[in-house]
């Protein structure tokens, strides 16, 4: 066996793949072959490193050198300089946005220093298409331990003791959920993995499935053992082709190794997993809707009780957990509940994966202990706001959550604190907004999403959300009244109280949260007919600053609707009734003589 001196890890997540990481691997392998280094250097396609902002990522081990935005053409230089001559390729290193210095290795990057990676432990470390690499990192050890050394109740107790709560958003204690499912007797039971990740800007579950599928398969089998189920189903949206491909490979390899299927590890326990594809409807993340979709029915929720634990898939007891929840389970069994519960806050144990998106420098995937503050996440790990702008708010929990503002920056993030602050954990999407984002328009964006995604079964959600959207639309056009603001609030409460499922019960949250935190912005839209952030087009007007205008006519010539008039060398004038607010005049003016008011 060759003793490799270097492992070159290349990110093969969806993000980096889209920027041609496969081409990088091909080029690296070609150069390695040309230089006769096949026995010294090995390339590995891994899951997501999380640092998607600067992808594609190539990480060189053992020295942890972290190359960003690598192109296939760089492969030759990496091999010739770094591998053969031992000199780092400085231009590809990550540059710290604050100090402007190159950071030589990932251990010194602010992005990684505050993170603890449990659910993402193998993402960016292993080849997800090779079960041997997973086995070498303890895959299926926890399953083996549970099957041979523990009875089902002991496993449930361990999970209960760890304090693990559902990572899909609800935060229900996982051990308790398993116990309820275990107590219901039936001839057939099911374990379901909810991989229907639908929040705009969220990609935690996808990355786990792409980077470490075996951790989820193993945890599903463990769950099956505790509740007496021998069938697992993964409900995944068809928009995740890479995750589906890697899951299929993983299931097949696990079956070949006897780690799934009949008589697992000689213990007499049978468990097999199949895939079910969703069409990408947001409501199918709700467990009853998800189950109906798997049964071939319309993806519509039904009233609980009965809970899936009593009557779920095909009327049998079914336990539904989210991908990230499952990914935590094997580690808990191997390292112990005490270890897990030592991380986090009093009522929220362990870590949480967040997808950072929006106006933030380090867009990507991070995993931090519960109780980390928003400030640490945004400014230390996330590298602060893009282009030095001012932080305004962060939307957590996607369309079901709310926004957190500057006053919440030092709140430790956990399930209960976020609820108290008027938002929610959700599945972990974090959309960061800066001073240029209008909060009314943001609320409108999410309502637009929920109106689109509402299944239409219950009136409050189908009709109520549409009305909310219409009022918001009116306000952003400058046609709102103060009465509309009261109506918004009242209607929001009615929808929350009367909608059938989680989608409708939470969809007014972005409206309520922005009303609470940014009431002055609503007032500005309604009373002054202005958008303070300058984002609502209908409320902006372009004006010529007469002192600055030299009459060069550049704007008048560029205006697509010819609404700018004026003599040469004399100040110009914009006809507000004809202006379409395209902003071309402002772009063309060399004298800063156009302003928005």
């Amino acid at each position, binding site marked *: *066996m060759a*003793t*490799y*001196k*270097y*492992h070159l*890890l290349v990110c093969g997540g969806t993000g980096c793949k889209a920027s041609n990481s496969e081409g990088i691997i091909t080029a690296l392998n070609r150069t390695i072959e040309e230089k006769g280094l096949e026995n010294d250097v090995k390339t590995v396609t891994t899951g997501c490193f999380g640092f998607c902002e600067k992808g594609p990522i190539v990480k060189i*081990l*053992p*020295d*942890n050198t972290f190359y960003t935005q690598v192109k296939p053409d760089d492969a030759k230089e990496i091999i010739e300089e770094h591998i053969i*001559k*031992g*000199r780092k390729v400085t231009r590809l290193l990550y540059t710290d946005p604050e100090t402007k210095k190159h950071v030589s290795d990932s*251990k010194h990057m602010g992005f990684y220093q505050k993170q603890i990676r449990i659910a993402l432990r193998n993402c960016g*470390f*292993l080849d997800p298409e090779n079960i*041997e*690499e997973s*086995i*070498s*990192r*303890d895959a*299926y*050890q926890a399953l*083996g*331990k549970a*099957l*041979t050394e523990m009875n089902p109740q002991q496993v449930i107790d361990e999970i209960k003791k760890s304090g693990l709560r559902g990572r899909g958003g609800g935060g229900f204690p996982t051990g308790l959920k398993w116990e309820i499912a275990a107590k219901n007797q039936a001839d057939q039971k099911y374990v379901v993995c909810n991989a229907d990740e639908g929040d705009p800007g969220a990609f935690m579950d996808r990355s786990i499935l792409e980077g470490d599928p075996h951790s989820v398969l193993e945890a599903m089998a463990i769950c099956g053992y505790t509740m007496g189920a021998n069938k697992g189903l993964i409900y995944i949206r068809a928009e995740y082709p890479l995750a589906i491909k890697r899951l299929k490979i993983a299931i097949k390899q696990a079956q*070949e*190794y*006897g*780690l799934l299927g009949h008589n697992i*590890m*000689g213990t007499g326990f049978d468990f097999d997993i199949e895939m079910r594809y969703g069409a990408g409807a947001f409501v199918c993340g709700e467990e009853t809707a998800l189950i109906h979709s798997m049964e071939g029915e319309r993806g519509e929720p039904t009233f609980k009780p009965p809970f899936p634990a009593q009557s779920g898939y095909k009327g049998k007891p079914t336990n539904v957990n989210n991908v990230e929840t499952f990914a935590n389970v094997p580690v808990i069994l191997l390292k112990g509940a005490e270890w897990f519960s030592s991380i986090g806050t009093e009522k929220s144990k362990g870590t949480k994966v967040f997808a950072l998106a929006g106006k933030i420098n380090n867009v990507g995937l991070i995993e931090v202990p519960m109780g980390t503050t928003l400030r640490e996440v945004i400014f230390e790990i996330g590298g602060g706001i893009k282009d030095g702008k001012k932080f305004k708010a962060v939307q957590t929990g996607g369309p079901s959550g709310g926004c957190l503002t500057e006053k919440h920056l030092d709140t430790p993030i956990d399930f209960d604190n976020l609820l108290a602050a008027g938002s929610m954990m959700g599945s972990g999407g974090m959309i960061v907004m800066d001073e240029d984002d209008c909060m009314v328009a943001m609320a409108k964006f999410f309502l637009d999403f929920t109106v689109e995604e509402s299944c239409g079964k219950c009136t409050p959600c189908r009709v109520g959300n549409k009305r909310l959207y219409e009022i918001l639309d009116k306000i952003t056009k400058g046609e709102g009244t103060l009465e509309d603001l009261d109506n918004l609030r009242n209607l929001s409460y009615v929808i929350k109280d009367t909608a059938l499922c989680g989608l409708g019960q939470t969809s007014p949250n972005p409206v309520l949260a922005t009303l609470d935190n940014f009431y002055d912005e609503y007032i500005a839209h309604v009373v002054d007919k202005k958008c303070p952030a300058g984002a609502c087009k209908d409320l902006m007007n372009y004006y010529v600053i007469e002192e600055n205008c030299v009459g060069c006519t550049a704007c008048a010539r560029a205006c697509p609707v010819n609404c700018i008039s004026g003599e040469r060398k004399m100040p110009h004038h914009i006809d507000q009734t004809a202006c379409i607010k395209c902003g071309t005049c402002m772009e063309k003016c060399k004298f800063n003589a156009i302003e928005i008011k």
Partner: protein
Amino acid sequence: MAKITSLNDLRKIKDDLQEKIRLRENAESPDSLAQIKVGMATSGIASGAKEVFNFLVEELQKRNISAVVTQTGDMGYSYAEPTIEVTLPGQPPVVFGWVNITKADEIIEKYIRNGELVEGIIPANYKTIDE
């Protein structure tokens, strides 16, 4: 591939496979392991640094010692090539000169295993810009 039929089976396979990713696991926590840098600029390579580098990687693995071996540029001690720098956890780095295979073997057995100093140390007589 034979099926895994027991937990012991799985554990055995894991131990066999772990060797393949040991380099990656070691790199996760470099500060808790011996770190060895081999000066591999032109003069280093010409005096045999490459052979020493290969020897270190292979022998450390064979002798079951966890360490991170990397190559680096010219350390400046051209008169004493090949040179290697060894940093044991929590200790200041020590540079050894005139390292051939025999010397490397001695360094592994005496210094890395037992912390016992051996002949050939080049005293640090420089300051780095971080100090």
